[in-house]
């Protein structure tokens, strides 16, 4: 027991080595999470789920965002999302995609943070709200070029698909959050 405690203390002293206000562990995890988010969004881009209605997506990268929100805090979550979007944008996209994605990410992270803070919902509810916020953010950006009466149908479709995809991603996130200890 005392040996265990000793190890624990050593670990703590290592991980609390400050690096501009962050622990080394946090920095390492942030990097790993950016890489993971990039892989997930790349994987998702290989499977064209959104062929029928643009905007429908599973939001695999949101898995990383939610886990990070719970485990690494808001600052690191923003770093991870911005890092993922800019790096993916440079590698596979263009400037417009970067701006478009950043807008969506900020809306969705803000909503998820607020919902998380209320503590009413588990990660599943947080994920649902994030997915829908992201979809609605996209509609607002695209609203002018869309055909008028179809916008309402479009919103309904995106609300339903967002709720379902958000639930799946949220359940997965919840399992991960429960099983990683730091």
């Amino acid at each position, binding site marked *: 027991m005392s040996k265990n405690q000793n190890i624990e203390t050593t670990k703590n002293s290592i991980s609390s080595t400050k690096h501009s206000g962050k622990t080394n562990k946090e920095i390492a995890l942030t990097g790993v999470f950016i890489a993971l988010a990039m892989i997930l969004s790349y994987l998702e881009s290989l499977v064209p789920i959104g062929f029928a209605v643009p905007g429908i997506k599973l939001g695999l990268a949101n898995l990383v965002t939610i886990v990070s929100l719970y485990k690494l805090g808001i600052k690191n979550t923003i770093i991870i999302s911005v890092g993922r979007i800019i790096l993916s944008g440079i590698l596979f996209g263009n400037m417009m995609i970067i701006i478009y994605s950043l807008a969506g990410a900020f809306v969705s992270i803000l909503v998820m943070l607020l919902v998380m803070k209320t503590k*009413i*919902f*588990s*990660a*599943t*509810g947080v994920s*649902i*709200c994030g997915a*829908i916020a992201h979809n609605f953010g996209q509609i607002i950006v695209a609203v*002018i*070029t869309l*055909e*008028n*009466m179809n916008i*309402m*149908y479009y*919103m*309904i479709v995106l*609300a*339903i698909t967002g*709720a379902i995809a958000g*639930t799946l991603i*949220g*359940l997965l996130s*919840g*399992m991960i*959050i*429960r099983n990683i200890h730091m």
Partner: protein
Amino acid sequence: MKQEESAIIKKSDIVLLVAILVIALITFVYIMLTKKPGAKVQISIDGKVEKTISLDEDYEYQVTTDMGNNRIVIKDGVVDVTAADCPDKVCENHVTIKNVGETIICLPHKLVVEIVE
């Protein structure tokens, strides 16, 4: 309580999910039920109503402003923008409109064509 904190899904999450699905369904039904054909088409330029035309008779209306030209055609109670010299052609490619509240917008020409009662 501890159990509740670490639960991956709570009752409130299910309530949220069901509420969203129900609201979406109600909105869909509402749209379907309230959809009704309009009686007139209202043409606005830069936010000001320029002309209101009845849908009962076939009619062609040419909009010419400093910003450009749009040709609006009313035929069989359906309104269409058939020609425009705007760069994006969003208005020209737009589907025809006939129900109250439907619009065709030409952003470059600040033109709004809307179906009214």
